[in-house]
Structures are given as structure tokens and as C-alpha cells.
């Protein structure tokens, strides 16, 4: 039993940490957030050169062949800098779906391009009515000869505005919320009938709503099998949830550290406010909240790494704690920073808003707790 990182994992973590430290201070981040794409293409090329875009991919496609621990150490460091570049959308979701369900041809064509930084991707899974139910899909995919015809609308597509390629979750058979009958389709973002409307979210990222009007793609561009897309989505989303939790842990650590530092320097009533027991105990609570998330993250990563039989429940549990403890931590960080805590000028609020978005990406704490309860307590 050990909780140590290998030398390679340590080097990967240090390399991301150094980038965040040297090239991603808060001012730089604000400037990137203000650009049209809310990400830096130049940074993306740096990610490619440093090998980060290759980490989760198989060695046969030029990847690093990394596992969940490698993803975790990177995402935690990205979290510390609230890095905007779409590692989750392009590498972990779009790339992850191809890696798991893509055909040999699809993988050979696209994965090397992701790795070299030449392809931006997005996974279009949310719809207006779907909320956190991933199988609630109205967008249709109809087979017509050797073509698939897509009609419908996807919303809040992460990296949707910048993506060259989309993977769209569409309904090819069954009822609106059935897990069976979902098909994943690879669609070029510039295909005829695809219309994108870009907009900004509170955490700085630019997303898109995308409509599909009689969009035609060859049947060969299905990712996985017709009607069987959920089996591909589900494990990729489980991995993405662990990655998001790692990003969240990085954020929580920063919020706690910055708050602690502030209470040691901020003076009121002639003393540092950190000398007040009322504040000390609250910071002990947020310290423990952070440690608990870290423990459950490690547990989930070990389950995932060892293909344990409790992965799904463990990841739902992790997301419950990320939501609950995250709210506690950013709430206390804002409160203890006093008036400054509610300014846009201070980074605290920006960390908080990214945490809030993380908690909505694949379902909030209540959603995950209901899923956990179903797995654990249903007869």
C-alpha cells in the first residue's frame, strides 16, 4: 500500500506546475479569458510540445499510455491556475471517446492530430431539457442508406465554438430517456446544416449552442456502434468526473492557502485576524474538507486504476463531496476575505466560479447522491 507518485508522475506534475507558476498568473489568465476564444492557441501548442496532449492516449497512436494517476496530477495543477485551455473537452472527452469507442481508422486519423495540437474537439451531450440525465436525448440520428441524418439542438457544448470536430450524442431509436438507442456521431464543425452560437460562461470559458438541420454524415463516422453509444459515453464520463474532481481539488487547495495567508496578514483590532479562534476553527474545517476530498479522490483513482468493482459508486461519492466541500471552501474563502472577497479584481471569486461550473458539468451533488443511493440501497 502506498500513496506515492512514480518518478514519471512526479515529473509530469512538476512540468504542469512550473508552467502554471511561470506562465499563467492571474493577470495573464484574465487576458486570455477576455479573448474571443477564451483560450490561447499558443499555449495549446506548448501543451503539445511538452507532451501533455499525449498523456492518456495509447502508445500505438503516439500517446504516452498514461493512466488515471497521470491525468489526476495534471488536472490538479491545471486547477491551481484555473487554466482555460480545453484539456477536458478536447483530450479527455473528445479524445477519450475516440480512444474507447472509435474505429481503427478514426483513431489513426484523429488521435495523432490531437496529440500534435492540430485538432480541437468537443463532446455535444447536453440538451435544453436534459439537466443531469445524460440519456435524455431528443436530437435524432436517422439512417438513410449509407448516411446518417442529424436533426436537433445541443446546448452548453464545452469548447463547442473552437472545435474542429464534434462528437454528438443523438437518438437513433428508443424512448427519449432510454440508455439504449443512443448513437455517437463524429461531425465536422463546418458540415452543412451545423450552426453554432457561441457565448461566455461565468468561469471564463466560451461554449456554444449547436443546431443540426438535416446534417448528413457517412455511417462510417459513428463512434462505436449504432444504438450503443451510451456504453462508450458512460465510462469516459466516469473518468472525466475523476479528472474534474482533481481539478476541483487543485482549486480548493488554492482557496484554502490564499485564505490562510490573508488571515495571517490582514489586521483588524490591531491583530492579525487569523489569531481569532472563531476564524481558526473555520479554517480547520475547510482544511479537513479538503483532506476528505483528497482521500476520496485517491480512492476513486485507485479503483479506476485497478479496475475495481466499486468504481461507479466511488465516483458518485467523490462528486457528492466535491460539490458539498467545494461550496463550503469557496464560501469560507469569500467570507474570510471580507469585502475584497466579493470583488472581481481578486482571484478568489474566479476560483469559486470555476468550482461552481465543475459541479454542474456531469451532474451536481444531489444528482450523484441519488445515483449513489440507487446503486447502494435499492433492492
Amino acid at each position, binding site marked *: *500500500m*502506498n*500513496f*506515492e*507518485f512514480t518518478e514519471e508522475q512526479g515529473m509530469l506534475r512538476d512540468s504542469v506546475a512550473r508552467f502554471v507558476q511561470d506562465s499563467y498568473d492571474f493577470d495573464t489568465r484574465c487576458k486570455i479569458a477576455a479573448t474571443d476564444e477564451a483560450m490561447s492557441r499558443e499555449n495549446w501548442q506548448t501543451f503539445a510540445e511538452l507532451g501533455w496532449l499525449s498523456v492518456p492516449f495509447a502508445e500505438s497512436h503516439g500517446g504516452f499510455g498514461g493512466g488515471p*494517476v497521470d491525468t489526476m496530477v495534471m488536472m490538479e495543477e491545471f486547477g491551481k491556475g484555473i487554466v482555460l485551455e480545453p484539456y477536458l473537452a478536447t483530450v479527455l472527452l473528445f479524445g477519450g471517446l475516440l480512444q474507447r469507442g472509435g474505429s481503427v481508422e478514426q483513431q489513426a486519423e484523429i488521435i495523432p492530430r490531437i496529440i500534435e495540437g492540430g485538432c480541437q474537439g468537443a463532446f455535444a451531450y447536453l440538451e435544453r431539457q436534459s439537466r443531469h440525465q445524460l440519456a435524455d436525448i431528443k436530437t435524432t440520428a436517422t439512417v438513410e442508406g449509407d448516411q446518417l441524418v442529424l436533426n436537433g439542438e445541443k446546448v452548453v457544448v464545452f469548447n463547442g465554438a473552437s472545435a474542429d470536430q464534434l462528437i454528438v450524442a443523438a437518438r437513433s431509436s428508443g424512448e427519449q430517456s432510454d440508455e439504449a438507442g443512443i448513437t455517437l456521431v463524429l461531425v465536422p464543425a463546418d458540415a452543412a446544416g451545423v450552426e453554432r452560437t457561441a457565448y461566455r460562461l461565468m468561469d471564463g470559458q466560451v461554449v456554444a449552442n449547436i443546431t443540426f438541420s438535416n446534417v448528413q454524415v457517412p455511417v462510417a463516422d459513428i463512434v462505436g456502434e449504432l444504438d450503443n453509444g451510451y456504453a462508450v459515453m458512460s465510462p469516459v464520463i466516469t473518468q472525466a468526473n475523476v479528472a474534474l474532481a482533481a481539478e476541483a481539488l487543485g482549486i480548493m487547495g488554492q482557496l484554502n492557502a490564499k485564505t*490562510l495567508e490573508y*488571515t*495571517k496578514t490582514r489586521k483588524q483590532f490591531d491583530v492579525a485576524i*487569523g*489569531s481569532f*479562534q472563531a476564524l*481558526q*476553527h473555520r*479554517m*480547520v*474545517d475547510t*482544511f*479537513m474538507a479538503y*483532506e*476528505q*476530498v483528497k*482521500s*476520496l479522490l*485517491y*480512492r476513486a*483513482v*485507485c479503483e479506476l*486504476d*485497478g479496475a475495481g468493482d466499486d468504481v461507479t459508486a*466511488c465516483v458518485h*461519492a467523490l462528486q*457528492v*463531496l466535491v460539490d458539498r466541500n467545494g461550496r463550503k471552501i469557496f464560501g469560507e474563502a469569500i467570507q474570510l476575505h471580507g469585502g475584497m472577497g466579493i470583488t472581481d479584481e481578486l482571484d478568489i471569486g474566479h476560483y469559486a466560479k470555476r468550482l461552481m461550473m465543475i459541479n454542474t458539468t456531469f451532474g451536481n451533488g444531489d444528482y450523484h*447522491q*441519488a445515483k*449513489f*443511493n440507487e446503486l*447502494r*440501497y*435499492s*433492492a
Partner: protein
Amino acid sequence: MDTSFAPEDLAFRDEVRAFFAEAYDADLQARLNNLDTFKDAVIDWQKRLYKQGWIAPGWPKEYGGTGWNATQKFIFETERSTAGIRDVIPFGLNMVGPVIYAFGNEEQKARFLPGILQSDDWWCQGYSEPGAGSDLASLKTRAVREGDEYVVTGAKIWTSYAQYADWIFCLVRTSSEGKKQNGISFLLIDMKSPGIKVNPIVSIDNHHSLNEVEFNEVRVPVANLIGEQDKGWTYAKALLAHERTAIAGVADSKRSLAETRAFAEREVNGGKSLLSDPLFQKRLSDIEIELMALEFTELRVLATVAAGGAPGAESSMLKIKGTEMQQAVQELRMDVAAYYQGVLPNELTAEQLGHDFGSQARQTYMYGRASTIYGGSNEVQKNIIAKAVLGL
């Protein structure tokens, strides 16, 4: 990063499981559950563990420990609690034993360690006083040196099982000079010494396990002083970190939660199992999820200790979260018992009542209030973390 069990770990788990199944038999369990036979049954059980060589997993091998690694200790703890077996009485094995082998002289080790390992001596702890609780260092029980003896006068309180004890380990004041932490000494006192009086305290669960122990000019040989005079606080602090790690009781809380869940499954609410109630499920998973995390927090501390580190301020976190979880489970079980939580022991049989866990649930819940108070109250633990970890 790897927490999977190797084949030899699995073999070890099977060995532990088989031993518990055999040695923790029905007759022993019945005697443990009867107050009249409790003491002898505890000693009997601990002697079985001693014969197996497993009585002191926390001790170094040279003093009678098992030499297990962190994984083996974790497996042993998990199997023990899964089998519903109570932990050993901690005062000798987990508290004074480690102080004696770490800070005692050779003569003291030879004299006291065998009796602790073989459970021939029952120990109790003389730390708290009527005027010294969380502020332990303000203790006033005095030990005055007269020739080869200390003369001890004062009182200790909240002393668990003093009525059974052969020995008590005490913090006593040997000097009033300087800081109050200086001038405290660590003394081992024979409970049969003239001048000792044990007064029972009945606790909120209607049981008698706690006592006040009075010392009226009790004469204690200087040979019973651990380490140096006036340095006892250092030894006591080392002990407290051990105690706090043990108090967390994560494996026991898991077992207790599983039991509570099983009770809830049996209970009927509006014609359906209580376990199917979404609000009940939420309360259950609130606890289960925190416990899943805490189990790994404990493993992380164990791994640090196994790698040569000492349980430091992390043990304070384990104590706080561990006791909060214990109380959460106890509270949930009270709600599962509903009005049967009010049933007193030995009024009606389970058959007459149509219910079998309310009385026990209440006793555990009521006495469980102590866990966030003893071993240094949780508020004091927060002060420790604020200072030692956060640097405040």
C-alpha cells in the same frame, strides 16, 4: 499509488478471518454482553489474542508486537470490526504500554510489559481532574518526594474502569516552577495502595464505567516514575497522538453503519421498508460517503507512519472526523429505533417488545456523547491543527 492487496495480503486476511471465527465464540460473546461477567470475559478474549501473538499490533516487534506492515494492520482492524469484535481495552495496550517501552527503564519494561501483554494487569488512566479537563496541564494532584517515595495527594476524574483496575498511570505535579507544562511527572501507581478511594460516577447511559479516584497521601516508590521527574508532559503528549489515532474507529463506524442499514431494511414505514425512503437513504449516504473518504484519510496516515513518520497533527483530524462519524451513526440508529429508543434494559424481553435494538442503540448513543469530549475535546483538537498545521 496502489492500494490493492497482494496475494500474501489476501492470505493474511483469510488467516485473520478464520482465527476470529473460531476464537470469538458464542459463549464468549454472551459473557461479554453480561455486566457481571464482562471483566473476566474481556481478559479471557485478550488472552486468546495474546496466545495467537496478535495482542499488540501497534508495538515494536522486540517488545511483543506483530511486526505487521500498514496494510496488515489495516486488514486486521477491518476484519476485527467486520466480525463485530470490540477493540481491546486501550489503557494498558494502547496507552501506558507504548509510554513504558519508549520512555521507561529496563527494569520497568521487564516488570510491567508482560502483565500488559498477557492482560494480567488491568490499567486505568489518571489524567483528567475535577479542575483540569481540556486544559490538562493545569492539573493539581501533587507528588512530593520523601526519600525513596512520592507522596501523592489529589483527585482524578472520568477514570474508566477504575473499579476493575490493578494499576493507574497518572500525571502528577512535582513542581510549580515555570510553565505549567513543566513540573508534571508520569507515575505508575498500584491501585491497592493505602489512601486510594474509588467513587463511582453513573453516566448518561445509566451505566457505571466512570469513576473519581481520590489520593490521600498515597505512597509510591520512586522506581515507579517514568523517565525524568518534571518531564511527564512530553511522554503524555506522545501517548495522546497514539490515542487519537485509535479513537477514530473508522472500521467500527463502518460496521455500525452496516448494522444500522440492516435494521432499517427490517423496519417498516407506511408499509414499505425504511431503507427505501429517499430521505433516509440520503442520511445514510451522507455518512457512508464521509466514511469512505475517512477510511482513506486513515490509510494515508498509516502509510506515513509505516514510512517512518509519526502520527502528528493528522491524528487530530482523524479524532475529530472519526468521532463526528461515530455520533452520526449513533444518531441515525436512534431514529431507526423510533419510540423503542426509550426502552430500558431488562424490562421486557425482545420477544415481548417485538423489538431488539432500541435499548442498546440508546446506550451507545448516550455514552457516545463522550467521544467528542475525551482524548482532548474536538475543540482542543481544532486548536492543535490551527497551530501545528495551519501555523496560526
